[in-house]
Every structure is written in structure tokens, then in C-alpha cells.
């Protein structure tokens, strides 16, 4: 399997603060990789650079041999990187179905005149969108909530919907920012099953940030550890989690 994402020497400064410095990552196609580290280590900042929210001050990001540095978030999404957010960001006033349909924006298209006049193509394409969106919702067992307002979903389902929406953009690489945050052990267990299911159904490469070590050691194949913006360690979960430096960073001496 080839390399999907190659990050070299990635760094960003906000004024005098060096939030991330010299981050190197190589992620193979189809892998499930974790990015861990104590609070404030720069994990979400790294995600924001990968998705174009921040422009890195130095370093390179290559996805499938194409550079992502300097591209806008919407362009990076079209290149095949989708993400979820630490604090859930759904389209709150739209229905569950419309949340997913909004994410199909670039995969099923029709022009503005069709929108204005509801030409025959409108009905055909909308039907196609409905089917595609329902197919994705079904995998997440959200299809029975299709007409519910997204903000009325229970917390765990909102997390699921965010993942479903990200997958609707048909990504090569899926970035999950603390998917288990605020979940109880049962919900976390369910989430782990969902992530396994996603890998099988969508054949997508996953990079996730997580604090729940049970989840991380349970499903991740490889881990990168960040501390104070720099890379502390990387390796398989058992290697990394038994590394005295990592233990020290998390628990202190």
C-alpha cells in the first residue's frame, strides 16, 4: 500500500508562540492512526493546518503527491480530506438529511439556472442526493431521524452525524478530532464499532485525535505523540504507551 499523507517538518507560529514545531508524519493508505498528547500539545492546531484553516509557517503537507499548503479549506476538502470537530459543528437549523446533502455539494452538482427554475435535472439530481444521503445515514443508523432538526439529536447521534457528513464528501483521509469526547463507556464502545465499520464500508484512511486511551489502544495501528508542539514519540500503541517519556508527559514524574 502506498503513502497517502506525508507531512514534513510542519510548523506554525502565532506571533512569538511556536504552537507546532517540526512535525513529521507518514500515513499509509487504509491505515488508522492516532495523534495523542496532553492538553495544549498542538493536536488540533495540526488538524487545522492539514485542513487549511491555518496556513503553516513552514513545512510541507503532501496528499497523494499533491501539496496542500496554501489551499483553502474548501479546496482541501475537494482534494479528499474531511474532518470532524472537537466541539460539534453541525448545520443546526437544517434537517439531518440536509446536513448530509450539503456535504454532497461537490459530488452531485447542477447549475444555478436549474436551482432557480427547478428544471427536470433538479428533480433527478435531488433524488440521487436523497438516495446517496440516506445510504450513508443508514450505515450510521440515523436514517429514521432524516427529517429531524440536527440540533434536536442526542449528543452521541450528533457526533455520528458529523462523521456521516464528513464521509459524504467522499474523502481519502478522514480526520476525527476527539470523537469520543463527552461519551460514556457504552457510547465509546459503540463509536469504536462505528469507526471499524467506516473503514470497511468506505475504505478510508483515518487519523484521529483522542484522549481515551482505551479507544486509542483498541483501534489505532500506529500512534504519534505530541508534547508542547513537538513530536515526542511514534510507534505502535504498545510501544508508545509504554515509553517512559510518554508516561512522563501525561502523568508527570
Amino acid at each position: 500500500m502506498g503513502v497517502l499523507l506525508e507531512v514534513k517538518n510542519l510548523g506554525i507560529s502565532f506571533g512569538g508562540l511556536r504552537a507546532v514545531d517540526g512535525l513529521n508524519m507518514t500515513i499509509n493508505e487504509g491505515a488508522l492512526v492516532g495523534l495523542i498528547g496532553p492538553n495544549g500539545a498542538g493536536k488540533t492546531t495540526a488538524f487545522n493546518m492539514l485542513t487549511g484553516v491555518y496556513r503553516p509557517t513552514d513545512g510541507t503537507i503532501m496528499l497523494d503527491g499533491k501539496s496542500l499548503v496554501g489551499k483553502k479549506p474548501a479546496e482541501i476538502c475537494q482534494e479528499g480530506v474531511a474532518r470532524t470537530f472537537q466541539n460539534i459543528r453541525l448545520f443546526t437549523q437544517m434537517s439531518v438529511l440536509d446536513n448530509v446533502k450539503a456535504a454532497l455539494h461537490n459530488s452531485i452538482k447542477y447549475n444555478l439556472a436549474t436551482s432557480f427554475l427547478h428544471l427536470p435535472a433538479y428533480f433527478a439530481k435531488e433524488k440521487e442526493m436523497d438516495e446517496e444521503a440516506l445510504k450513508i445515514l443508514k450505515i450510521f443508523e440515523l436514517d429514521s431521524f432524516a427529517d429531524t432538526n440536527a440540533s434536536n439529536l442526542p449528543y452521541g447521534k450528533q457526533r455520528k452525524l458529523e462523521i456521516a457528513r464528513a464521509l459524504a464528501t467522499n474523502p481519502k483521509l478522514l480526520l476525527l478530532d476527539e470523537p469520543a469526547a463527552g461519551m460514556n463507556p457504552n457510547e465509546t464502545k459503540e463509536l469504536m464499532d462505528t469507526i471499524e465499520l467506516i473503514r470497511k464500508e468506505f475504505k478510508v484512511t483515518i487519523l484521529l485525535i483522542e484522549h481515551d486511551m482505551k479507544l486509542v489502544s483498541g483501534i489505532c495501528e500506529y500512534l504519534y505523540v505530541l508534547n508542547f508542539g513537538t513530536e515526542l514519540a511514534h510507534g505502535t500503541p504498545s510501544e508508545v504507551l509504554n515509553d517512559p517519556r510518554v508516561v512522563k508527559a501525561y502523568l508527570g514524574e
Partner: protein
Amino acid sequence: MKIDKKIIVNALIALVVYAAVMGLVKGGVLSRQMMSLITPVCVYVMMSVSLSLVVGFLGELSLGHAAFMSIGAYTGCLFLIATKDILPVLVSLLLAVFIGGVAAALLGVIIGIPVLRLKGDYLAIVTLGFGEIIKSVFNSLKITGGAKGLSKIPLVATYKNFTFVFILMLLVILLVSHLVNSRHGRAVCAIRDNYIAAEAVGIPVSRYKILAFVIAAFMAGMAGVIYGANLGILKPANFDYNASIEILVMVVLGGMGSIKGSIIAAVILTLLPELLRGASDYRMLIYAIALIAMMLFNNSSFKRNLTEKRNLQQAEKLSKEV
């Protein structure tokens, strides 16, 4: 099947309204004052529906909508004056409406590109300032007649031409409601709900913001031409920030993101001050009370129960179908 029924109902409503107004006009039941209100009602419906695209669906506060109306009004009406002896009335009016819309849309692009980088309060302030600038420009230009106003505009959009005005209004409503229920409208609503997430799913945020803004400006420009061709005279003072606020009040009272609400609010709020003329001194007082009453109704538990009941019924119907 479900959609078809909705279309038929809406078409029936439009037909009934049209027939009723036509009947009243032809039957001579209406007073002159009421007849003179027919076109303004249609104009304000167009204004509030187009503004609701920006405020209700895009979620950006624009306080300069009357400025776009004035751009359309002046360019369109200048065209009407210039061509009144050359072209047949309908052709001239049709072209004027189109030209007015294009002029307003062009300005929408020019203003929109820098301004839509701003958010919330800042955008509101800039659009407010822009409206005042436009007003001053029309005040000082010779071709627009300055503060005295542009007069001798052919009266081609009064109640006598109700059919034309009504069709134009329906077109605006239809286009906006179609747009909202489409791929493009969904992108606009997604930006309103969470622009960071919208970007993350591949929606080019700036492009759709400008798109919504320009479409609203185009429709405001068309409405402006009708406004001018009904009054016969255009004064810059008609398009000050009070006018923008009035339109905004219609959108807000109609319920953000509800086209039907915008229409109803526009009709009531245009008719109300005129109907209350008899109450002379108490006119503005009653108007203000009516505004407060509408606001209270929008937030009342009564209305909430109604919508909840409707949602429940829909959900039940859906679960039965499944």
C-alpha cells in the same frame, strides 16, 4: 405526489389573490387610497422576500437594502423616461425592470466583494454607511434631479398595470423559494448555521455569500423600478436608512428564514400605517403596538405549540409510511 399538492395549493392561493384584487379594482369597491396601495404592497413583498435571502437564509445583517432599491429605481426610471415615446409601454417597462435589476446587482458585486469578508455587526455598519453614501450621491447628481427628485416618470406600474406587477412579484417569490430548496440554497443555509463546517465540507463560502447578496440586490433593483413607475417621482430621502429598517422589520417579524412570513409581514406592515390614517394622532402608536404584538406572537407558547403539533403530525405520518 406530496410536492405536487403543495404546488397546486400555492398556485391556487396566487390565483385567488389575483382574482380578488382584480375584482375589487374593476368593481370600483376600493377607494383611491386603497388602489394606490396595491403596487407598494407588491413592491414591499419583493423587497422583504429578497432581503430574507440575505438576513434569514444567509444569516448576515444588511442595513442597506433600500440603497439597492434606489439604484434600480433611478436607473430603471431614467430608462423609462428616455424611452417613453420610442418603445411600447410593456417593452419599455420590461427592459427598465431588467436594467434596474442589473444595475443593483452590479453594485451588489462591487460592494459585496470587500464587505462580505466582514461579519455580523461590522457588515451591518458598512451596509448602513453604504446606503447613506448612495443617498448622498443621488442628492448631488444632476441627472437624478438632486434633492428635488426625479419627476415625470411615466406611471406605468400603477394598479392599472396590476397584472404585470403581480406576475413580477410571483416570479421573485418563486425564484427565491426555489433557490432556497436547492443545492445552492442548502450551501447558503449551511454557511448561516456554521461557516467553518461549511468550508470543511467543500462549500466555497465567499462565493455563496456574494451570490446570495447579488441575487437579493437584483430583486431589490427590480422592485425599485416598479416603485418609481408607480409614484412618478423619486426622491433620495425615500431611500434613507429608515426605509432599510422598515424592510428589515418585515423580515424579522415574518420569522427569519420563512418566505411566507416575510410576505405576510410585508403586506400587513405596508397596509397598516395607511389604514390607520383615520386615527391621525394615534397612528404611529397603534403601528408600534402592532409590531410588539406580532413579536410577542412569534415568541408565544401558543405558536410554539402549533408548530410542535405540526412537526409531531409529520413525524407520525412519516413513521407510518416507513
